[in-house]
């Protein structure tokens, strides 16, 4: 939950990078840490195992500056992707304002992606949150690998869409990232919405900021 502190005039929002193990969540944060000027970000904290696998979380605070008198910050977190650490993942989701699902594009990781997406949905429900009603974007990482699955297959498996019930939002909305496709459209009389999706090669920084920008803007919108 974003916190608006009228006394100290601060707004803090929590973004969580979720997804299967070794998918590139920590790499996303490391790239943000390297590229954002030090005056706009804090220290990156990583609670990792000796083999550099995330044990509890990574944390990176990013400062948007003072906007209309409010110091505005995003707190970026990753979760441990390994199945074993579900209790930790659940804790990190507490109070989340926006989620980035980092999928591993490799064909061999399709099952792990699907399992992690279902786990995300279930863990959100345990916090009383509906993934389809909060800012949510998907990143298809590792697009440079020869065994990367086609985007259409990933979208069908991980981002098939959900029924959109608010009449005010039932407007055909083209997907700016995929010409000819739609974020909101009608199928067989039912309005369906899909999460914005981005292709990335996080090790090279490709797509990292596109993803972060998209989820950040969606979170800011919820404050209005």
């Amino acid at each position, binding site marked *: 939950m974003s*916190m608006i502190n009228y006394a100290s005039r601060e707004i803090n929002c929590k973004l969580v990078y979720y997804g299967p193990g070794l998918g590139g969540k920590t790499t996303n944060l490391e790239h943000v840490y390297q590229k954002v000027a030090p005056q706009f970000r804090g220290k990156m904290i990583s609670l990792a195992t000796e083999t550099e696998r995330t044990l509890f979380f990574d*944390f990176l605070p990013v400062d948007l500056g003072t*906007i*209309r008198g409010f110091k505005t910050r995003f*707190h970026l977190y990753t979760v441990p992707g390994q199945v074993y650490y579900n*209790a930790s993942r659940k804790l990190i989701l507490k109070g989340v304002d926006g989620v980035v699902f980092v999928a591993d594009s490799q064909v061999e990781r399709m099952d792990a992606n699907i399992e992690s997406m279902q786990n995300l949905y279930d863990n959100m429900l345990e916090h009383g949150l509906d993934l389809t009603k909060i800012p949510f974007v998907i990143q298809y990482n590792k697009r440079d690998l020869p065994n990367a699955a086609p985007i259409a297959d990933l979208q069908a498996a991980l981002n098939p869409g959900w029924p959109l019930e608010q009449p005010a939002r039932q407007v055909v909305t083209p997907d700016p990232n995929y010409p000819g496709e739609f974020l909101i459209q009608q199928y067989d009389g039912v309005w369906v919405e899909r999460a914005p999706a981005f292709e990335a090669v996080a090790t090279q920084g490709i797509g990292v*900021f596109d993803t972060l920008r998209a989820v950040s*803007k969606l979170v800011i919108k919820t*404050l*209005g």
Partner: protein
Amino acid sequence: MTASGWSLGEAEARRIEEILHEFLRQSGVASALLIDHTGQTVTGVGASLPDRDGLASLAAADYSANDQLASLIGDVALGPIVHQGERGSVLLADVARRVILLAVFDRRTTPGLVKFRAKGAVQALERVFTGMARDAGQGAAPRMEGAFLGEAAEEIDRLFGA
């Protein structure tokens, strides 16, 4: 509270800071912070701390992990947690299941005194937060104005490279 989260007004913030200052005076702790369960700092008094955001995120995670541990062994409520170090020590205590009191102290005081005084501070803070929860149910949720949203989006483009 807001639709997207919760908010803290100036009157409550003043009262909270008074309680924290009193806690500082009575216990001899160097710094006292209130953080929410997502790791965000609500307010703080006392000596400035290096990397306050990092400290708050770790403290919230630490408290939550201990809370879950307690529930796994069948305990319903977790009492204050004290990490006692050679040079510095930390106390974490829950306030009304809403926020966490984080006190940083050194050898100029004792864990026993800090725990004792923290109990009174927590009770006083709980009264403030209970009142806030009651008031939040009565008024419209505060929201940020449109101009803020537009400027924030521009800052996002600038910082994250449009």
